[in-house]
């Protein structure tokens, strides 16, 4: 959810024009443009080839000089945000268009530059217009292509992270150990623990990412908590205050449970005396606010807390397009995560 300011040249939308492959493609596309222009301009009196030659030389000149500069300036351009870098790149293209238009006037027509001459002005203006339209469209295409690639990698890695974050081996084996113990002591409890664990794993393995009512996510989270309660006994105290209105709000599955798992794993478990986990859900200004807070242990054991959080945050980003958020507030003694999502019923 934070802005990515330090992008590597790899996330920059301009392709690396220094590479032979991109250079070849650019030359090819430029030549196609030249053919296109020639086709429009060609009348039967003139030779097709000589018009094509003139178009080719002039358009190729502008493109080659532009991409040479873009190649050299790519690193510098990548320091700007995408908008600015795009505008600067476009200016570079327009600069070369202007330069070559003037050169054509001076060296090919052998005329002094005279901007009051409507023919010359018209020539320059037309060139600039055409090159700005084509330039802008091309840059936009590069930008969209990068977004698309980024989206693809994000989706794949999010899926993988989700799977890893959901199945915490520690939780599975500890729960199994608890159940093994309960079978000897309290068979009924063992039975319900197995049911809870099965339900949790069913949700975990369910790949459908459809939204579920908050009520349902809360039920899953409670199954998780009851398993942890068996394990930690009185060391784990849960305080919950849930606004009834919130129960019907739709949220992504497994958005609350990992927050509670973090609270137990990093907050309660490292404390010899245990502690309290506060779970609150309210509706405020058209948004559902779910917050989980836990005491912070002095033992540094933040192994993996970040993975679950960034995973939820990425999923929220994808689903709500920036309208949801995940905030972490930390004091010396308390750690609180608040998830805010727009209310959809």
């Amino acid at each position, binding site marked *: 959810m934070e802005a990515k300011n330090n992008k590597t040249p790899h996330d920059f939308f301009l392709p690396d024009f220094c590479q032979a492959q991109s250079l070849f493609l650019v030359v090819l596309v430029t030549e196609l443009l030249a053919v296109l222009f020639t086709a429009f301009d060609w009348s039967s009196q003139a030779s097709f080839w000589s018009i094509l030659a003139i178009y080719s030389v002039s358009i190729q000149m502008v493109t080659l000089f532009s991409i040479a500069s873009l190649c050299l300036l790519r690193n510098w351009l990548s320091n700007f945000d995408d908008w600015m870098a795009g505008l600067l790149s476009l200016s570079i293209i327009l600069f070369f268009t202007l330069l070559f238009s003037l050169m054509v006037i001076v060296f090919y027509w052998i005329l002094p530059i005279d901007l009051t001459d409507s023919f010359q002005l018209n020539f320059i203006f037309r060139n600039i217009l055409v090159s700005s339209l084509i330039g802008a469209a091309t840059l936009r295409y590069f930008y969209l292509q990068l977004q698309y690639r980024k989206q693809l990698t994000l989706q794949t890695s999010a899926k993988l992270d989700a799977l890893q974050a959901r199945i915490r081996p520690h939780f*599975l084996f*500890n729960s199994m*150990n608890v*159940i093994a*113990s309960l079978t000897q002591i309290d068979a009924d409890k063992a039975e319900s623990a197995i049911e809870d664990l099965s339900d949790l794993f069913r949700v975990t393995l369910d790949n459908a990412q459809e939204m579920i009512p908050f009520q349902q996510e809360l039920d899953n989270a409670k199954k998780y908590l009851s398993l942890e309660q*068996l394990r930690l*006994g009185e060391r784990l105290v849960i305080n919950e205050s849930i606004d009834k209105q919130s129960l019907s709000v739709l949220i992504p599955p497994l958005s609350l449970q990992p927050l509670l798992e973090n609270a137990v794993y990093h907050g309660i478990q490292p404390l010899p005396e245990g502690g309290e986990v506060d779970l609150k859900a309210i509706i405020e200004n058209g948004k559902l606010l779910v917050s989980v807070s836990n005491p912070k242990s002095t033992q540094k054991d933040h192994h993996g807390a970040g993975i679950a959080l960034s995973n939820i945050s990425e999923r929220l980003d994808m689903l709500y397009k920036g309208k949801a958020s995940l905030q972490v507030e930390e004091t010396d003694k308390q750690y609180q995560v608040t998830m805010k999502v727009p209310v959809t019923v």
Partner: protein
Amino acid sequence: MKILVVDDEPLARQRLEGLLAGVDQISAIVTAENGLRAVEICQDQEIDVVLMDIRMPGMDGLEAAGHIAKNKQPPAIIFTTAYDEYALEAFKVNAVNYLLKPVRKTDLISAIQASSKLNKAQLAAIATQQQEAKPSDDDHKGRKHITTKISGNIKLIPVVDVVYFLAEQKYVTVRHLNGETIIEDTLKELQVEFEGQFIRIHRNALVAKKFITGMRRDNQGHAYINFEVINKELEISRRHLSTVKQLLLNM
């Protein structure tokens, strides 16, 4: 055979107790809910085998095992864990006994019968592997307690209470909030282990940063450091003076 079961989870303790209950050779089972308590029990009672959970609040199983191993007649230690990729790696490499939870009865019994004492080399190897594997910040590296022997018994001093370590002739003295004792570690080892919390101010002195209040120069040009909690000054050697000054400036 007397067995100590160490685990912070009541049901996990009960399970091991249950599994051990019917075994012939076992005469008594004692339980502890954390590492600190386990160290105490191993001092007060003759324990043969310790079944030690790794991940526990307060003092974890690995640190507790390190302290217990310093006893005159240390018990054998078998680690138990549900899942701990880093520790398991170290155990396999160093041939340390361990069991995976939920533990099978047959595995448990054969592990107890085959149990042997942890040696210093195994412990040291595990400790370094743990340090490398876990990305921890400087302030929390190392043990949480230091072991000292008082008339044959081991005693634990919380590292947070230590004001300074001073090397005097053969031994290193620890000055802590409740007194002063001699320990077996060397200053060099301590400096590496607790880097971040302590600073070397002299060839013979390692000082807790948080207790330092300031420094003083006498008219012969010697520099001394003073502490908020105890009324004693330690000399700063010329070689370490600039780093100490740097620290004081940043405080």
